[in-house]
């Protein structure tokens, strides 16, 4: 191959070159980008990264970017926070939060996948790009399409959170609201990609798009001092991210950039939409689709395209999957904010809540290095927690009014043990 990468079928292995397609026309299984690691090993070294900015493009050789592609935008390069207060609360050492709630430009991990998808869209000559989305992806597509001069058309479930709709509209993207859930939107987009010559990032550009996820894993390893963690806790919607973090770790091992070690992968879902965690817990070879009903809208995919791959990876790694209720999600959002100063969206509440559960169940051991992947920003899902924080009564702008206010609050504070 002239590129150092090409599409191959994940099941039958047939090579398909590089083109905007996402499934093998022989067996209908998904296609994935395969790299020529032998060539990569000869041309790229860890030391080459030293002079590069800390964003996802520092790992350009591991991404499906065509020759001469001028990567744009300061995407990725998010903090890996060494937790102290939350770790103490949970009784563990070596707890890290990978914080993609502050990923640029649109404040979610989806900026990474859109960055590689739009590189592919440019390569294949698309002018219109789009996606099916539960919100974050639409935000990322709209923002980066505006940056790079693409026309954007995104498809979303009609009842999406207002903040996520607004965060797409502001960039000038066309928004098509679909009267149905995300799985209905997805199905429609598969048909649209079949009919129109558009670059739908998570449909016909999906193999290129999902490679962007690897940079989340590369950064984790580099920020740990070029070491792999013992455990990773990853939110699951379609089930792709967890597999791509594993792929990132495998690639670093293959190139000799990190020492090989067993990493346990743990998947997190909301109980109201838990086809993958149910499959893991029940030992099913194929997940059973569900009708989503959860406040974690960005994870509400009842028919996850990569669900079976995710559950297989989890089981084979010695990890586990868990799910948490809406109430536990809200509690975990507050806990992460109060202990680490990180305000995550509902999906992050799922991941944090599940991590706590896994520690309590003894599946994550206190002495091991554990990374919790936070993938989106809490400012986008304020509706989910607004009821927790009712407005307090306003007081007059006078010192005596404040003194009276303090007086009225003190008994309550005393009662609460303050």
């Amino acid at each position, binding site marked *: 191959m002239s590129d150092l990468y090409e599409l191959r079928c994940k099941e039958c292995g047939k090579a398909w070159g590089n083109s905007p397609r*996402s*499934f093998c*026309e*022989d*067996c*209908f*299984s*998904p296609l994935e980008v395969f790299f020529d690691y032998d060539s990569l090993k000869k041309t790229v070294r860890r030391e080459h990264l030293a002079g590069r900015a800390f964003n996802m493009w520092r790992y350009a050789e591991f991404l499906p970017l065509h020759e001469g592609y001028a990567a744009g935008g300061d995407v990725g390069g998010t903090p890996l926070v060494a937790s102290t207060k939350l770790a103490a609360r949970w009784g563990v050492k070596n707890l890290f939060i990978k914080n993609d709630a502050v990923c640029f430009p649109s404040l979610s*991990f*989806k900026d990474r*996948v859109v960055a590689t998808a739009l590189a592919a869209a440019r390569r294949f000559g698309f002018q219109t790009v789009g996606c*099916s*989305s*539960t919100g974050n*992806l639409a935000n990322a597509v709209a923002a980066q399409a505006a940056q790079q001069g693409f026309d954007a058309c995104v498809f979303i479930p009609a009842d999406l959170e207002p903040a996520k709709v607004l965060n797409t509209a502001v960039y000038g993207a066309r928004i098509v609201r679909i009267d*149905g859930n*995300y*799985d*209905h939107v*997805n*199905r429609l*987009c*598969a*048909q649209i*990609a*079949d009919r129109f010559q558009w670059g*739908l990032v*998570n*449909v*016909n550009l*999906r193999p290129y*798009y*999902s490679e962007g*996820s690897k940079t989340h894993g590369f950064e984790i390893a580099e920020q740990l001092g070029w070491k792999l963690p013992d455990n990773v806790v*990853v*939110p*699951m*919607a*379609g*089930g*792709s*991210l967890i597999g791509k973090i594993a792929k990132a770790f495998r690639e670093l091992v293959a190139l000799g950039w990190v020492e090989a070690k067993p990493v346990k992968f743990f998947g997190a879902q909301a109980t109201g939409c838990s086809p993958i965690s149910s499959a893991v817990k029940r030992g099913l070879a*194929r997940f*059973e*689709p569900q*009708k989503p009903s959860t406040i974690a809208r*960005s*994870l509400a*995919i009842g*028919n*996850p*395209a*990569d669900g*079976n791959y995710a559950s297989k990876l989890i089981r084979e790694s010695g990890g586990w999957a868990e799910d948490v209720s809406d109430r536990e999600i809200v509690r975990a959002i507050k806990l992460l904010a109060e202990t680490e100063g990180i305000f995550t969206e509902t*999906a992050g509440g799922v991941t944090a809540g599940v991590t706590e559960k896994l520690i309590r169940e003894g599946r994550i051991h206190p002495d091991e290095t554990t990374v919790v992947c936070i*993938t989106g920003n809490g400012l986008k899902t304020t509706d989910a927690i607004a009821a927790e924080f009712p407005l307090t009564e306003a007081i007059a702008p006078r010192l005596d009014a404040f003194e009276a206010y303090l007086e009225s609050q003190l008994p309550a504070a005393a009662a609460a043990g303050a």
Partner: protein
Amino acid sequence: MPVTIEIPTAFRRFTAGAPKVDCSASTIAEALTELTARFPELSRHVRDDSGQIRQFLNVYLNEEDIRFLGGESCCVKEGDRVLLVPSIAGGSL
């Protein structure tokens, strides 16, 4: 009045380019059997070696995934649409 099976582009090389195929069936299983009897080359693309519908092929009866309708034994009636859609799209988390 028949049931109409909508054929995705990738399958049309096996249906002589036809985007839709009408058949008279009373269940999804019968509809798929009739389809693959008429276009035998399509058979291995619809079902795997164990005879199950392929893992990455989603089958819908009108607007609903057949897995919510009891699987391929679910009944179809005149005028129903059966969609064959590759399981490609999806969120990325």
